[in-house]
């Protein structure tokens, strides 16, 4: 096999971006860092997050990944990739273990085991891909690559040699007579199983499944000299299988392919990302595949903050979802409404959708059309970090300065209560300046603010929470384009508890 192994994440010839060292602050502001335990623990999860946070260069790169996601949405394909990754991890562990072994017969057996695991994993994945016939370019290429590998004579030959050696070792059955200070090794002979006899005798008194009992075997990591002595005697009693083992490892002991580990990691990125995103989608809901709009249009339907949605769904609660539509020329959305009303979560959700779309991922939503962005900038309140108000405003303005320098037409800015540390009239003036500068740069802005005047500005699109259908005095956590209205929350007491006659009857009968 001379052609380089194909990647599932990047098209052939694409540059593989360097992995960022730390989670950028904008990703933390969007709370995307909290996906890490769901994406995988520790370094593995952080590595997968880094890929998720790196935008792709063009629409076709997005399509390349979306195709794979569509394939991986089939449970059988996701399971195939997962099995492959697990088998390769087990192989890796066997190989690492073999390096620690002091006894030749012990080490060789682990190497043999690792070879068996690798080759079986390759055969399994190749067979799965032939059977499942994925539609994506990437998985199609991988299938062809693996088929070529399996078809090579070296592979077939190795497979047979390893299987024969394992079978020969597996057929050995020996007998130990263990006395107080003497062990006699011989070939096994036909003698009744004492434990089975006892189980049979007492079978009449047992009911149901036996309770598993913790019996520690106090097994040491390394072979003891006595075990080594036993193995040596066994090898003398059964020489042929051990000779075959040595021959096989000498011939094939180096046949491990590092490209397979990369393939397993790439596959698990799709599986893990999909699983993490599904945790934020209601049961049975489909994920939406973003359409990339080249004219700057934005049409997002049915989104919610990924982390909030996941938490609500875990508790079995309903998730209010929101819409946002912006025509090609509209670049600024101003979100107003009561505190604690879900405004920041909605702004985060808009940011998250852009990031996911740019990484080629599907989104828990009804439908998504977004422009391709290549960076996200956030202006989030830093209340916890500084308490000198003058210092706070100064720090905020410095960060905004740096942000303005970097902003361009493919930048998305998410602002959360900007200039909250100063007076309302100051804040309004500053915010208008900020929006004007961003407009010059052509950046797109989603801002959460209590300054309702901003929503009335000509260039802005006003977004607010939707009143509850049954009680106009209370608000939902749903947002859509509508004028800012400033109504406070209110609620009725008794009906909230479902204690009306009809409600009670229905609850009993449910």
């Amino acid at each position, binding site marked *: 096999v001379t052609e380089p192994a194909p990647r599932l994440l990047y098209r052939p010839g694409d540059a593989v971006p360097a992995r960022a060292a730390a989670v950028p602050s904008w990703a933390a502001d969007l709370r995307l860092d909290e996906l890490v335990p769901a994406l995988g623990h520790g370094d593995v999860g952080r590595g997968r997050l880094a890929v998720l946070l790196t935008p792709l260069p063009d629409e076709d790169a997005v399509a390349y990944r979306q195709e794979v996601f569509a394939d991986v949405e089939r449970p059988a394909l996701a399971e195939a990739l997962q099995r492959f990754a697990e088998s390769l991890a087990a192989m890796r562990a066997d190989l690492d273990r073999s390096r620690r072994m002091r006894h030749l017969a012990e080490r060789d057996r682990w190497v043999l085991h690792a070879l068996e695991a690798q080759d079986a994993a390759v055969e399994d994945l190749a067979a799965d891909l032939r059977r499942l016939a994925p539609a994506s370019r990437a998985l199609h290429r991988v299938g062809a690559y693996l088929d070529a590998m399996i078809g090579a004579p070296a592979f077939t030959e190795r497979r047979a040699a390893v299987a024969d050696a394992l079978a020969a070792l597996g057929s050995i059955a020996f007998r*130990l007579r263990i006395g107080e200070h003497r062990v006699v090794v011989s070939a096994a002979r036909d003698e009744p199983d004492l434990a089975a*006899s006892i189980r049979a005798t007492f079978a009449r*008194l047992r009911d149901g499944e036996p*309770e598993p009992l913790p019996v520690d075997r106090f097994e040491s990591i390394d072979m003891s000299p*006595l075990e080594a002595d036993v193995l040596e*005697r066994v090898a003398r009693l059964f020489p042929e299988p051990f000779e075959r083992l040595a021959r096989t490892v000498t011939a094939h002991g180096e046949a491990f392919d590092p490209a397979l580990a990369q393939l397993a990691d790439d596959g698990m990125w799709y599986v893990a990302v999909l699983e993490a995103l599904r945790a934020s989608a209601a049961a049975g809901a489909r994920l939406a595949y973003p359409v990339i709009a080249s004219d700057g249009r934005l049409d997002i339907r049915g989104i919610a903050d990924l982390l909030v949605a996941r938490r609500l769904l875990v508790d079995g609660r309903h998730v209010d979802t929101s819409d946002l539509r912006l025509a090609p020329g509209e670049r600024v959305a101003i979100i107003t409404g009561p505190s604690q009303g879900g405004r920041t979560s909605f702004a985060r959700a808009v940011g998250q959708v852009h990031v996911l779309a740019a990484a080629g991922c599907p989104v828990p939503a009804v439908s998504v059309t977004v422009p391709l962005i290549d960076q996200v900038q956030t202006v989030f309140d830093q209340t916890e970090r500084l308490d000198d108000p003058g210092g706070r405003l100064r720090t905020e303005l410095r960060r905004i300065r740096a942000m303005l320098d970097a902003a361009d037409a493919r930048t998305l800015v998410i602002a959360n209560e900007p200039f909250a540390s100063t007076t309302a009239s100051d804040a309004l003036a500053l915010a208008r300046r900020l929006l004007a500068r961003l407009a010059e740069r052509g950046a797109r802005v989603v801002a959460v603010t209590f300054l309702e005047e901003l929503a009335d500005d000509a260039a802005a699109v006003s977004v607010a929470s939707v009143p509850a259908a049954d009680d106009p005095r209370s608000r939902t956590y749903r947002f859509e384009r509508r004028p800012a209205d400033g109504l406070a929350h209110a609620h009725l007491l008794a009906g909230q508890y479902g204690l009306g006659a009809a409600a009670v009857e229905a*609850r009993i009968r449910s």
Partner: protein
Amino acid sequence: VITRLLFPDADLDLDAIPAPDADLVVDLELERLFAAMAAGDDAILAVVRRVVPLGVRAGAVPWDAARTGEPRSVDAILARQAVVADTLAHARTARELYRLATDAVDAERRVWGSALRNAELVLHRSVDVLRGLLDAVEAMRDVLARDRAALHAPAWLALADRLAADVDDAFLRTAREQLDRLGDRTLVVTAGLGAGNRADGFVLREGRAGRDSLRDRVGLGRPRSLAIEVTLHDQNAMNALAELRAQAVAPAAAAVAETACHLLAFCRRLRDETAFLVGCANLVAALETVGVSLVMPEVLEPMAGVLATALVDPCLALAIGGGVAPNDVDTSGCPLTVVTGANGGGKSTVLRAVGVAQLLLNAGMPVAAAGLRAAPAREVLVHFPRGEAIDADEGRLDTELRRLSALVDRVRPDSLVLLNEPLAAVNERDASAIAGDLTRGLVAGGAHVWLVTHHHELAAGLHAKPPSETRFLRAARGEGGTRPFRVEPAPPLITSFGEDLWAAEVEGSGAATQAAKPPAAGSGASASTIA
């Protein structure tokens, strides 16, 4: 071996039983009942606390089993009643089995005890434990064989038969012989090569433990066997040998320990099931000393309401040492019973008596009455005042509404719901509207409801427009303010105070009628009815 003394198709598993509803235990003062059943034995107390509120549903018997073709709860109750009746007539059987099972379980704790998990130690301890358990099971078998003639309940007879069949003398002989063989110091095992070519898959064999044959030692050509000598003074080698021995006996140790666990589980279940029965015998004895006798209730289905003569609250009798006035109660045919009347007139007492009787009936136990007939209730749920003061603010109303809503979550058709002074702390108009709605909803949903209230508008509303067949009971102070704790059928007093006043003062047609007192805002609530 299955026990099946308490449930028709399951054995008692205390760990699987959810903790009883804390409100039920507190409001019906069930701890007094449990204490009388335990008679100082903590193990019995632990069992009855779980089993009495559970009734006869051990998970395996669904409530509406009639529809799914499984045994109905009525049949399960009748089966339990038979077992309890045998126990009350002949308590020695249950008491001796309880003692044997308790001793066997306690002995195991002494022998096995700490977290010993070395296979060879586990093997030897397990063999000891198993020997002790075999002795205990043999003794149980003998007790049941001796008392068989005095027992009538199918569950008792089936247990006696099972032990006679499964623990016969031939079995005991074989089992004891095999256990002796496990004591040998020389082990014969077979094994194969596992991961890393280490010995694996040990199977302990009934091999000859004697010396190797001459043929094995001096074979011709290729050797038939090879020996390894372990030097006694080499501590590492001796440790390695011990490890090998442990590995060799591990599967056998697991088999023996597993068998011991099965027998032990049987002893635990038998201990717990007989604990409940001993508790029933203890309860009858305790109530006898305070002059209360019990009767096995008549279980009828379908039937709404209860028909009882000389019903008392056994918990109250145990608390005050007797002298509790009995009540005759007839609410048969009525899904809803409304109790009104004077404060301290025994409203809560009759409510508790009905609740406790229903629980005892559900559990197949005798009830504190001269006679009682009722259907099983799916569950008994209570709502008693919980310190929500009379002049409650919004927060307190909120708290009680949340409590009521949580109650409704648990109500199912055929639940018995005891509402004691709901929303006592709320103004009468609001309380009557909310509680009236709630009551109608509960009855419409198929629950059986007892409602005690001092809110006249609530009772009058239900009287004017009853949601179903409804029985109205009234507690009244006796002549001269005595407290007979009697509750009689009577409609709620009509609160025509305003109209009466209008009539008296404006129309001037005469004295106000019977409701001479306006509804006192401060009456009612949870004033204890225990003298």
